[in-house]
Structures are given as C-alpha cells and as structure tokens.
C-alpha cells in the first residue's frame, strides 16, 4: 500500500514536522472504542493494537495522517470516511418492550465462533440484531445506540490521528489530566495566544505539565525562534508529551535550551564551568571526554548568557512551585510589554498571587480567568451537549510586564478613601478583572476609568 511515497516528508513551508507518517514516529491511533493510544511505528516491525488486531508498520509509513483502516489479516485496507447516517423517525417506541428483556441474543461462545470463522464484524452485528426479539419494536434511536455499541465491540477498524497540539493535548487530557495539570486543549490555546507565541518569538517556560507547554511553544515556533525552559531536575527531563509530537530533533536542539533552577541563578557558578587544571593533556580517550564536557559546559554557559540577556517576549508557567518566587526569579528577563501567563489547576494560588501582583507596579492588569468548554453531539435529530465535557480545565493568570514611573502616578485618592470605608463596612473588597470585561459591562465611564487608574497605582481596588 503506497499512497504517496513522499521521500521528503516535511512541508516545504514548515520543515519542523513531517506531514506523513515516518518510521520512528509515535502515532496516535483512534480505536473502535473512541479511545486514542500511542504506538511506535518502526519500519518492518509489527504494530499490535490489542483486541483490534496487528499489522506491519510499513503499511502506514508514508501515509498522510487521519485515514481510517480496517485490519484484514496483517494487511490494512483504507476505509472511506463515514458520514452521519440519517436516522428515520418511526412510530416505534419502547412502550411494549419489557425492561430486562433487551438481552444479548447470541451467546459469547457463538460470537467467538463467528469471529474465528472470519465473519465480518458488521455481519456479527446483523446476526445479533436479527436474533434480538425486540429489536424492531425499539425506537430508531435506541437501535442506533445499540448498533454503535456492538460496532465498537467487534469492529477491526482504527484511524490515525494527526499529532496536532490539539489532538495531543486532548489525548493526554483524557488519559491522565493530572499529569498535564488539567490543561485542556482550550486552556492551552489561550495560554499560547495570551503569551503571543509566534514564529521568531523568544520565550521562557516553566513546564511541570509533562512537556505540554514546551511542546506547544515549539510547535508554534515551527523551527523559528527561541525557547528556554527552566526545570527542577538536574538535566532536562524527557517530556512524555513531546514524544507524540514527532518533532525533528535537530531543529528542536537548535531552538530549545534548558536550565534548572540552580543554573538559572546569576550568582551561581555551575561546577561544569569550573576548569580544573589537573584534567588537561591526558590520553586520547580522556581528551574526547574532556571535549564532550567542554561542549556541555559551552551549551550550558550559552543558555545562561542567553537567559540573562533578557528581553523575552513572554514567560509561561505551569508549576507546583510558588508562582511569586518564580516571578521574582524570572520577571527581570521579560521585556517591557511582554506577557506573563501562569496556569494552575486551582484558582486559589492564582487568587493569592493576583492580590499581591496588583500592588506591584511592574504588572499591568493581572487577571484571572477560568476556561470553559462544551462539546456537542451533532447526530441528525439528536443534537445535545455530550454528557461528560464539563469538569475543570484549569485557571490562568495573565499580566503584562511594564516599567513603572513612580512620578507618573500622582492621582487624587479622594475616591479611594471613600471606597475603602465602604468595603470595610461590607467586610470584603473586590476587584473585577478581565481582558474582555470592557465589552461585557457598561460602567459609568468616567467613574470606572478613574477608579481603574487608581487601582493600578495603589493597593485599593474598585468594587467589582
């Protein structure tokens, strides 16, 4: 099977990622259950996907992503894409079907027999349906549901899933959202846009989300730009999320450097940089080792220099460490007007951080947002939100790094003391904040605006 044996697997415009499946890729497959799983595709090896079957990896190599296959023996047959099937409404209802009667009409043994004899999945389903006493009495909707459930169980088809950052994030979120700190695809997309991530940009990231943030930034850079990530382990960690992205390694090495929290300290001299005189002029082997060490040292020292040079476009944080401490360490390297985006699975740490940042004139308009996403089933006649796309997708704090001018902030604080009194009476004070608030509310312009300027310059906040 050779759809297009494209020898140059990369797009002309963006050489960072292959547009077809290559040997060595880890490929996400969507199984009949709807679940996605990652499988390594190595030339001449066999890919085994459990109950669904197994096939030779070469069958996939060179193919574009996104096709659907049926396993026939060890061969793959590309399937036509399925369209939605119109479900005819009928007069049948479930009125005459007694509960509990709608049972499996074929025994497990019978089904195994049919499967072993090579009967096609759709035939097994048909057989089951025929034997189902009440099938014709059920409504068309119930029938469709029943058919789909059976299909998921006996189908030998799968699809390849293109490793877009959306698909990879979605896969991880469903698989283990804790490991990516609840960063749902919508949240991730907001992080990238709020941080203005673009080809050619320069970014600092603190990623304890299994490399999701690093992967997403690298994807958006597309081979052009710079990313320094700061980790809390001795050497840069192997990011499990990145494995699925199938980036070209040489390009990643060019645009991505890693420091840890010690080597990111300006006043710290890493041991690797301490030249020891006793180590020169030994054996050939020793000299190779020293060269290696020298290279490593150079890489590290370059990354340090690069970080300390500052003027980064944005700082992106998804970390268990105190975000205020992280900012105290890194804010100095963010350029004026650069974005700070901090993600957390809980609102509380960001709430506390926000109430500190708004006292600091280096942060403009720190605001907290929660992302909200809802997916719908759009089958004909049966459109409704899916039953399980709620839950938490994490919280973001966004602020803009600015340069304060203490002389510029002399604004009358008459209003302020009045407000403070009112808040004290009510037992709490509040500040409403959002990147988009300006067009959802229509405040009394003058008042709101003046109050807003006051709130930017001192510790008092306007009532929400």
């Amino acid at each position: 099977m050779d759809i297009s044996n494209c020898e140059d697997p990369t797009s002309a415009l963006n050489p960072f990622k292959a547009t077809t499946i290559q040997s060595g890729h880890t490929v996400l497959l969507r199984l009949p259950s709807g679940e996605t799983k990652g499988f390594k595709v190595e030339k001449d090896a066999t890919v085994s996907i459990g109950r669904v079957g197994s096939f030779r990896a070469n069958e996939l190599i060179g193919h574009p992503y996104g096709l659907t296959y049926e396993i026939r023996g060890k061969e793959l047959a590309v399937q036509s894409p399925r369209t939605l099937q119109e479900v005819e409404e009928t007069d049948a209802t479930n009125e005459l079907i007694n509960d509990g009667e709608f049972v499996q009409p074929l025994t497990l043994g019978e089904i195994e027999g049919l499967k072993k004899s090579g009967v096609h999945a759709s035939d097994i389903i048909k057989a089951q349906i025929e034997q189902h006493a009440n099938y014709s009495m059920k409504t068309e909707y119930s029938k469709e549901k029943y058919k789909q459930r059976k299909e998921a169980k006996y189908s030998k088809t799968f699809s390849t899933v293109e490793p877009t950052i959306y698909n990879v994030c979605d896969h991880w979120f469903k698989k283990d959202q804790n490991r990516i700190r609840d960063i749902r695809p919508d949240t991730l997309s907001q992080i990238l846009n709020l941080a203005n991530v673009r080809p050619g940009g320069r970014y600092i990231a603190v990623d304890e989300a299994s490399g999701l943030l690093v992967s997403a930034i690298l994807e958006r850079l597309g081979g052009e730009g710079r990313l320094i990530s700061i980790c809390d382990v001795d050497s840069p960690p192997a990011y499990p999320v990145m494995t699925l992205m199938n980036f070209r390694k040489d390009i990643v090495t060019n645009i991505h450097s890693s420091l840890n929290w010690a080597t990111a300290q300006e006043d710290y001299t890493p041991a690797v940089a301490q030249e020891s005189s006793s180590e020169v002029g030994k054996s050939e082997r020793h000299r190779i080792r020293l060269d290696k060490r020298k290279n490593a040292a150079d890489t590290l020292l370059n990354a340090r220099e690069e970080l300390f040079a500052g003027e980064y476009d944005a700082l992106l944080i998804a970390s268990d460490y105190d975000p205020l401490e992280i900012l105290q360490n890194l804010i100095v390297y963010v350029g004026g007007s650069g974005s700070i985006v901090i993600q957390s699975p809980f609102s509380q740490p960001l709430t506390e951080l926000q109430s500190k940042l708004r006292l600091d004139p280096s942060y403009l308009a720190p605001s907290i947002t929660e992302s909200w996403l809802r997916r719908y089933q759009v089958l004909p006649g049966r459109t409704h939100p899916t039953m399980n796309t709620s839950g938490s997708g994490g919280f973001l704090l966004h602020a803009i790094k600015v340069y304060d001018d203490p002389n510029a902030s002399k604004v009358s604080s008459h209003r302020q003391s009045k407000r403070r009194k009112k808040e004290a009476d009510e037992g709490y004070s509040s500040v409403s904040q959002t990147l988009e608030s300006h067009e959802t509310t229509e405040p009394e312009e003058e008042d709101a605006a003046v109050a807003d300027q006051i709130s930017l310059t001192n510790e008092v906040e306007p009532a929400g």
Partner: protein
Amino acid sequence: MWSNARDVAAGDLVIIWQTRELIQPLLITPGKDLNSRFGYYRHADLVGIPYGSKVGSRNGKGFIHVLRPTPELWTMALPHRTQILYLADIAFITSWLDIKRGSSVIEAGTGSGSFSHSVARTIGSVGHLWSYEFHEARANKAREEFSLHGMADIITLTHRNVCKDGFTVEDTVDAVFLDLPAPWDAIEHAKKALKKASPTRICCFSPCMEQVLRTVSALNDSGFTDITMFETLLRPHEVHQLSLQPLTQAVEKLKKLEQKREDKRQHQIARTSKRKRDDLPETDTDNVGGKRLRTQESAEEDVSIRDIPDAVVDPGQSANQPSPIKTSVSKVSPDVRGHTSYLTFARLVPTAPSTIRD
C-alpha cells in the same frame, strides 16, 4: 409518606448507606437479614435505634448508616426502570413550576418515580399528583411503590399513552411536567388539564435540541407564553490539600546535587588515573560527568529533586525548613455530568374574554 418518628420501627422503609456508591432502600422486616460486603446485619437489630445511626456489622466486616428516606436519598437508592431525573433538574423544575403545598400537578411519564416522590413530598397531603405511564409493567411497579411509601392518597397513577389519549382531568391542575419522547403531541391535552382561571405552568424535558425546537413551536401554537428554556447542572467539587513548593529549597537542593556529582567526578578522575597506571579497564560509571548534559535520552537516570527525600540531600537541614502549609482547595470534579436535558418552560395566562374588560 415515610416515618416521621425518631426511631426505626418494624415495617419502616429505611435507606441503608454503605458507601456513596452503594445506597439501598430496605423494608425493615424482623426475622430477615441484610448481607453485603460490608457485613451481616439482622433487621431486628435495627428496630428501635434512632434514624441516622451508624451500625456495626455482626461479623465485624464493616458498618452501615441507617437513614430516614427523603426523595433525594430515594433518587440515589431507587431501582432504575428508566433514565431518571436528578436533584438539579427536579429542584429547578419544582421551583419554576411553583409546585408547593396544595399544588395540583400532572407528570407524564412516571418512569422510575424519581420526580414523583419529590413532588409528593413538596405538595403534601393537601396537594395532588396525577402521574401517567404508558409502559404497563412500569406503571404497576410504580403503583406498588407509591402505595408502599404511603403516597397512594397523594398520587393517582394511570397507565395510559397521554399523547394519544390525553389526561384524565380537565381544568384542574396548576402545573404539567412532560418527560416524553414527543411532548408536542401532549401539549394540547395539557392545556385542557390546566386550570383556566389562574396562571398555570408547563415544563417539557427533552435531551435533544431538535425536540426543544419542535416543543417551542407547539407551545407557541397552543397559546402558551413566556416560552423559555434552561439547562441546569450540579457541579460537584473535589477538595484537595495543596501546598506550593518553595523554590529556594529547590535551588539549594540542585546546587548540592551538582556539587555532589562534581565531587564524585573528581573522585572518578583520581581513580581513573590510578587505574590507568594499573592498566585496568574503564568502568561505566566513569562516564557520569560527560552524560550529565545530554538531554532527553538520559532522562531515566536523572534524579528529580522531588524524588529525593530531604534526608538524602542534607540530613541536617530538613528539620530547619518547615514543610509548607497545606491549604484546602477545590475544583470541579473531572467526571461531572455535562448535560441532562433541556428544560422548556411556558406559562398559560387566564384570558377568557368574558371576564376581561378591554
């Protein structure tokens, strides 16, 4: 309805709470036993204890809580004959329809009776619920249940396809609730059953948007007004204990870790020099220094500082560094149900032209 007495009596229906996932109704029948993976209990032992009691099993395998039934607990414990309504929808529908003491209400279909129990509780003994179920076996089951629960006086259950045959009352009820696949077929019937002289209300419960659109159109055609539609959900939160890691500690640990490796490397160099003189083969561990800055591939060998107990890094210092304070925080539980049904509401206002001067 159910017992109001402080203590459990023989013949009471009680709710046995074993875990959040295992909540069951039980009719106290002295002589019978209750067996579960949380132990073995005799009904007789439960007679006379106060409602709300924790009771240990006779064989020490666990315990149960014996609770007084409420419609909310019943919803969690009832035998499912159909998809059932849950708290958020039941509560909201009850409120919008203004169901209260003395209300006359229609529901169709009865289903598993989750909504019926809640309505019966809310309207009390001076109210009345007409409940219709088109599925005969289910209707019989529900009738038994209502009778067992002492609600036979409050609920009149009829086995009937209301879309075809309409309701059994006219100009009688304050509110109608339709949980039917094709509510539009019952709307004209509902209009007849609703009181003519006072403002009345209707709710149609439909999972799909297409049903809503058709229902809205039918309600409009039948002269219902203020047609509106809602969705309501209950989002359970899970509580976590969170502490932010102090970064300064991480920095110190990393520095010490690096120093340790550097020391080890120097030690290795010294050993290698000695070995070289003795012409011994180089060992693998000799390469540690060079490997340190290789990326990705070597990750398994890297030590996360969070994997290292304080004691390993610096046995003396951990005592001085107080562990960070934990705060209770919460977030929406990941497995929240994201949709139940659309609730389409409308009102019918009294408009008999003979009584209104214009």
